[in-house]
């Protein structure tokens, strides 16, 4: 009987060890081997001179791996206590991932403080939290919280993108800005590490390692110092707005900003709900990229488009003169000129009309040219279409035309000639993005070539920098010499003559530009209903510029929200940018704006309170 018993035992072992060996061997391996993902750092982003704009730092994430959890409730309770987190919050996170495989870590805390890491590690050594893992992961860092809208931010990939097969669950991908446009370049390839763990999940040794490959490095066309100058200029003024500064000879974006901004670092390690809510609820819309997504009436900056159309189409010559009595009547309606005292400019030619921003002159000329030709030439100069900048979600501006009106009105209304009068001075339906205004003034500066603004200058995949060719120009028209001569003379006189742009004058650098002061018509109804003060309805200020006049090196558009007269608020920002640009070019010390701004936007006090309020929740 004993022999039979032992034979049965031997056969049982034979079945387990020999027949079913493969199955159990695999189970044993699953038991003691773990594959850990090694996150690849995203590529570092540099400015055109090699200054680091975006880099990576190490952050610690704390996760629960349920594979060996005996009592999940106990783990949640203890972990919440150790991390000083709200227990129900931790439970919510776990519940959301409950159906995932148990070996998949559930991240509880993405950017843990060193104190939290130490607390968890101590408990792990005591075997109190064997199912909690601390991982070191590279996290995006934006050293100076500058140009947030330009760089964008990163975040966990959406379920939809995972479904598309573009990324895998848990990947950190660019959600906006450069991070999104060039996500494929910036994203590295995650590695993996196979380790041996014991029964309480502690790593004993590494079996093999497939190191992560860092993402490609990008060099942008941005110039750090010019970028800083733009932002300093806005900070100093206290206004919100946007600015895009270009190299008019190729479309390189030298600086790009939208104010108010946000801190992209808050997104890098997973933004918390309160911060996100306060950002989205903020009336000032800090997440909106005003430079490519905001559409504003260009005001008088539009006059060069009308002037170009008039000369190129042969309607008038630059010497064409109009008498300005301070107002003019068209189609039975009276239109005001730009001077507040109601006086007129007298008899002015085209140069003087631009210099002094005479409305009556452009009412008259615009009426003569007609909406179709204004539309044609404004488009050729870069207005009313997307510029094609390499940033996501650019919106298209609008230069109205009869076709547009017919298509967008319900009753297919036709264009009334009276509407052309408002369009001629950049009001009415004209609404344009700051980036297209920068292309517009660049095209005027370089004589007719409409470049595509672009941000990527070179890519380094580890084998050295490879320059990225600039995108082809969108269009190129040869403007008549007399057009160009007139435009350059007039814009030079705006700044250096007796014009409205004196605030941007830098002796010796022939700054040329045009101010704009646009009524905030669209806001009027909504805002006054909410009981806002008149100041909320203050005009938007513009300044478009290039320099030097005869050999333009830099061009740009500065838009100041509710800034009132563009010559007062926008031109000084442009001046600081230009001074910085030329000082850097010539190796002189960069100008510094006074720490205490001489004046501040009277609106900002109230605005700052509303902006700060929700942020602290």
């Amino acid at each position, binding site marked *: 009987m*004993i022999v039979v*018993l032992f034979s049965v*035992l031997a056969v049982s*072992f034979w079945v*387990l*060890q*020999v027949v079913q060996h493969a199955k159990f061997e695999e*189970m044993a391996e699953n038991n003691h081997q773990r594959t850990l993902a090694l996150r690849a750092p995203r590529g570092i982003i540099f400015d055109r001179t090699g200054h680091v704009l975006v880099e990576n730092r190490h952050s610690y994430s704390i996760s629960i791996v349920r594979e060996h*959890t005996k009592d999940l409730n106990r783990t949640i309770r203890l972990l919440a206590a150790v991390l000083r987190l709200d227990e129900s919050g931790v439970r919510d996170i776990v519940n959301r991932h409950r159906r995932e495989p148990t070996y998949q870590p559930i991240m509880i805390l993405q950017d843990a403080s060193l104190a939290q890491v130490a607390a968890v590690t101590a408990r792990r050594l005591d075997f109190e939290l064997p199912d909690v893992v601390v991982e070191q992961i590279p996290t995006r860092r934006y050293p100076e919280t500058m140009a947030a809208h330009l760089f964008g931010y990163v975040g966990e990939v959406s379920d939809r993108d995972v479904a598309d097969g573009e990324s895998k669950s848990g990947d950190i991908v660019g959600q906006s800005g450069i991070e999104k446009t060039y996500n494929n370049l910036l994203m590295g390839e995650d590695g993996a590490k196979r380790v041996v763990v014991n029964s309480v999940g502690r790593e004993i040794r590494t079996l093999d390692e497939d190191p992560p490959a860092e993402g490609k490095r990008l060099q942008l066309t941005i110039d750090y110092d010019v970028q800083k100058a733009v932002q300093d200029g806005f900070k100093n003024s206290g206004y919100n707005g946007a600015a895009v500064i270009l190299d008019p000879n190729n479309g390189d974006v030298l600086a790009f900003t939208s104010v108010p901004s946000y801190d992209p670092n808050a997104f890098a390690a997973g933004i918390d709900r309160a911060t996100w809510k306060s950002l989205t609820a903020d009336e000032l819309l800090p997440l909106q990229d005003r430079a490519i997504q905001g559409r504003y009436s260009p005001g008088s900056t539009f006059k060069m488009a009308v002037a170009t159309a008039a000369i190129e189409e042969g309607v008038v010559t630059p010497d064409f003169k109009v008498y300005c009595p301070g107002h003019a009547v068209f189609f039975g309606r009276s239109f005001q000129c730009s001077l507040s005292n109601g006086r007129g400019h007298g008899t002015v030619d085209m140069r003087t009309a631009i210099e002094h921003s005479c409305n009556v002159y452009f009412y008259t000329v615009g009426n003569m040219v007609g909406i179709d030709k204004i539309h044609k030439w404004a488009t050729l100069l870069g207005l009313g279409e997307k510029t094609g900048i390499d940033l996501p979600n650019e919106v298209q501006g609008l230069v109205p035309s009869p076709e547009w009106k017919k298509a967008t009105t319900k009753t297919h209304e036709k264009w009334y000639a009276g509407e052309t009068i408002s369009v001629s001075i950049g009001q009415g339906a004209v609404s344009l993005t700051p980036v297209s205004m920068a292309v517009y003034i660049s095209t005027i500066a370089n004589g007719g070539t409409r470049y595509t603004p672009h941000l990527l200058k070179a890519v380094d995949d580890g084998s050295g920098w490879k320059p990225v060719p600039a995108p082809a120009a969108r269009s190129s028209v040869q403007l008549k010499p007399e057009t160009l001569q007139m435009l350059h003379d007039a814009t030079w006189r705006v700044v250096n003559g007796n014009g409205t742009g004196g605030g941007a004058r830098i002796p010796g650098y022939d700054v040329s530009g045009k101010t704009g002061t646009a009524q905030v018509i669209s806001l009027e109804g909504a805002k006054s209903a909410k009981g806002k003060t008149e100041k909320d309805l203050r005009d938007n200020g513009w300044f478009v510029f290039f320099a030097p006049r005869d050999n333009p090196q830099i061009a740009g558009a500065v838009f100041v929200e509710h800034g009132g007269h563009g010559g007062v608020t926008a031109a000084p920002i442009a001046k600081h940018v230009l001074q910085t640009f030329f000082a850097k070019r010539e190796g002189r010390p960069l100008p510094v704006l006074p720490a205490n701004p001489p004046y501040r936007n009277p609106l900002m006090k109230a605005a700052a309170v509303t902006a700060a309020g929700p942020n602290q929740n």
Partner: protein
Amino acid sequence: MFERRLYHHVDWALLAAVLALCTIGVVMIYSTTADPTRASSHMHLTQLYAIFLGLGAMALMLMFDYRTFTDKSHIIYIVLLAVLVYVMFFGKVQMGARRWIPLRFFNLQPSEFAKLGVALVLAKFYGENRGAPAWAELGIGGLLTAIPLFLIAREPDLGTAVVLLPVFLAVAYLAGMRMRVLGVLCLCLVLAAPVAWRFGLKDYQKTRISTFLDPSQDAKGAGYQQIQARITVGSGGLSGKGFKQGTQGQLRFLPVAHNDFIFSVLAEEQGFAGVLVALGLYLFVILRALEAARLAKDRLGSYLVLGVLASFTFQVVYNITMSAGLAPVKGLTLPLMSYGGSSMIATLAGFGLVLNVRMRRFTN
């Protein structure tokens, strides 16, 4: 007393097989516990000391005629009961059970020696009677077994307590107990099972049994050990992962690998080949001891050998079955291989008695 010629009648083959199993045990204990970074790295040494103490006890058992022990068996039995009662009240509590008496160098586990005591007293009781035991004799024998069994079960140590049952059944069977009686006893057990389930078993014992029936229902709790045991054995394969190369035992997926699950570790690291060697040795030991029972010069001797052998065989078979995850997990050690001083000393002492009976088969 020990006479010189008796020396030649010692069953050296049996002794060698026993020592071989002890050696395998020490090696496996070393494999699973020796780690310079861990405090428990001296366990294999402790086991070696226990083996030497056990050999001493074995020599002591050989020195006197086994009849000397059976004659004193009532005293031994009473002392045993006293010690078990003492443990009940003053024993050392470890892992939720009161089983040990702390001595200077190690903790003594009296229940291990109860097997010997019961084997002695039953051999004596039935050995002196001729013919098939009457109902009354069966009842007395049962009572003699039941008292220590009850005391041990209360510690609680159900595993060791149950080991006493085969001792009684084997001796009573050999003494002529009819199969019908055995049938009645089994029927009683079956009928008593629901009652015991309801009142007698602790919760952890219930879960052990119910998870045995379906281990996957509680893969993280009680079924864990069983699943891990199967993985451990199965992943060993034909030739094993090699000395100290096991993952299940080394990385502690299998609990108490040096103790209850030492055979699983052997299966993992030495594979089916190692399993066959160990099984062969155990089979040899058992068959050789049975031969001693057959050769014994009197009924007393064969009863004694069988009593000792019954608990040993039961434990070996049960533990090995459990090691493969084929039986409910119970705190039953594998005699001669598992880590544990008391068990080793008592088992070697028991083999001392077996050798004694065989050695003195020609003396009067």
